[in-house]
């Protein structure tokens, strides 16, 4: 019998990830490793891993990796790409990382059209530090720092960072996807490949926001977490292409 899903070459073999059961990080890691393999850029890929649950993604992704300070992934990616434009660069960031502490770096690298791809894991909380409010936390959502639910009066509103950067002319491709089911995962992979191809073609900045389950901090089972993405999270953050400035194929 033949193995139908051979091991992705850019995913390290025989390592147990430290992610919680049902966490979306593992799925996105796998999609990235498959996409760089299919687009044949794995051997020149550098992935930037800032503080967050995925800070040790380098233990799983079998590509060159560099750690960055919390929020500074896109600045590090800018430096990498400016010094070695021939490299393929991914900045893998949480929502707290990309849309709170790293907002300035996000906005300006996108606006300059830096030619790398940001992968934003939107799990509506700070995962690594134990489930505090993130900029993407929904109104009335309970977190460890919004014990009675987020209120607009005190905490403002969920931040739509990808929609913001999608308006910038330097952004070649922006899409919001989810990973809560087989069809969603396939769509997410296609989006990643679109963004990666935009980088390969030198078109500028690309970003894929992934609505990603964090069952532990949402206090749900993995299956409930999937359903919550469909029923609640994606109502605030609708899925779809937010910017596509790639030249139209003729």
């Amino acid at each position, binding site marked *: 019998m033949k193995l139908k899903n051979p091991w992705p070459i850019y995913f390290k073999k025989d390592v147990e990830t430290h992610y919680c059961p049902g966490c979306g990080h593992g799925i996105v890691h796998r999609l990235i490793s498959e996409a760089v393999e299919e687009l044949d850029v794995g051997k*020149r890929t550098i992935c930037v891993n800032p503080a967050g649950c995925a800070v040790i993604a380098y233990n799983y992704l079998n590509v060159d990796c560099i750690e960055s300070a919390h929020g500074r992934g896109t600045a590090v990616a800018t430096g990498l790409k400016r010094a070695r434009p021939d490299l393929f660069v991914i900045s893998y960031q949480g929502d707290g990382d990309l849309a709170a502490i790293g907002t300035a770096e996000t906005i300006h690298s996108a606006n300059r059209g830096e030619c790398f791809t940001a992968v934003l894991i939107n799990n509506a909380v700070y995962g690594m530090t134990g489930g505090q409010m993130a900029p993407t936390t929904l109104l009335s959502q309970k977190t460890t720092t919004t014990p009675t639910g987020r209120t607009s009066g005190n905490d403002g509103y969920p931040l739509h960072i990808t929609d913001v950067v999608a308006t910038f002319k330097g952004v070649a491709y922006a899409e919001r996807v989810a990973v809560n089911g087989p069809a969603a995962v396939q769509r997410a992979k296609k989006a990643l490949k679109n963004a990666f191809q935009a980088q390969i073609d030198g078109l500028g900045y690309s970003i894929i926001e992934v609505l990603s389950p964090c069952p532990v901090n949402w206090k749900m089972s993995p299956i409930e977490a999937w359903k919550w993405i469909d029923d609640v999270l994606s109502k605030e953050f609708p899925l779809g292409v937010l910017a596509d400035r790639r030249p139209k194929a003729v």
Partner: protein
Amino acid sequence: MNKEFMSGNHSFGEAAIRAGCKHYFGYPITPQNELGEYMSEHLPKAGGVFLQSESETAAINMVEGASAVGARVMTSSSSPGISLKQEGISYLAGLELPAVIVNVMRGGPGLGDISAAQGDYFQATRGGGHGDYRTPVYAPASVQEIADLTYKAFDTADKYRTPVMVLSDGLIGQMKEPVVFPKKIEKLPEKEWALRGMGSGPSRLMASFHIDPAVIERHNWKLFRKYQEIEKNETMYETYMTDDADIIAIAYGCTARIAKGAIKRVRKDGIKAGLIRPITLWPFPSQIIKDTASKIKKYIVFEMSTGQMLDDVLLAVEGRIKVQFHGRPGGAIPTPAEFARIIYREYQLESKS
């Protein structure tokens, strides 16, 4: 050799380009703007990249990226901006990434003023950012030395895989002097540790984080041994008229120049004063201070601060002789006459006792 007449801030830039620096990331702040402006004009011509970042925080992290793929890279700022860079400098130290950081100091704390000052000595020599690390610090006292030490800073950074700081001030940064630049480096050796994509080999990793404290402890001791090597090999200082001195001034950077002027004056009156000028602030030239302590009556430490390098002098002296301090903080600029008065006074006090 071609002598040029240039400002200190421009000399930082020219020396960096000659040292093979191809990338500069920075954010404007007085009194060092001429450095970024120089780079914006000359770095692209030299085949490099100048990028004005959105903040000093962003700049130092761009430095991390460029350094990780093996480039010689520089950032510069003045005091408040250097504070913003500290987290990034700590990461560079932890990741063992070479880079040159220029601080053209101004008055503080807070926004302070845009005059020359030396209030960032602690920040520069004590690590500045979090964690157990050191940063080699060069303190030029002339435009020529800005050129020489900036050039050297790149070598030190690469040799030890560490961030290196050149600590100057608004006075030397904006002053124009004749300067002869070192030869331009055309080709640098490959850095075999740099990230470059896997190519045909295994994937590489740059990380300072580890869940196991034992791993980080080992990493800290490894860094410590590296710092010991730097202390052994890289300490630099200048002595001026110390051989027959009864009283020795200790000062760095522009303050040392002012002190030299004062010593010339008092020598005319037969006062045997000399100067020790630390050129590296870390590693600090403690040995020469220990060695001279037994031969003289007193040290006078001059700083444009309320006394920071003073701590290092006191540690070196270990209470063996008296140490007098005279400082002008916050951007006030002392004169040779002022320092000369202090030397006369201290000399007379010593003769009486």
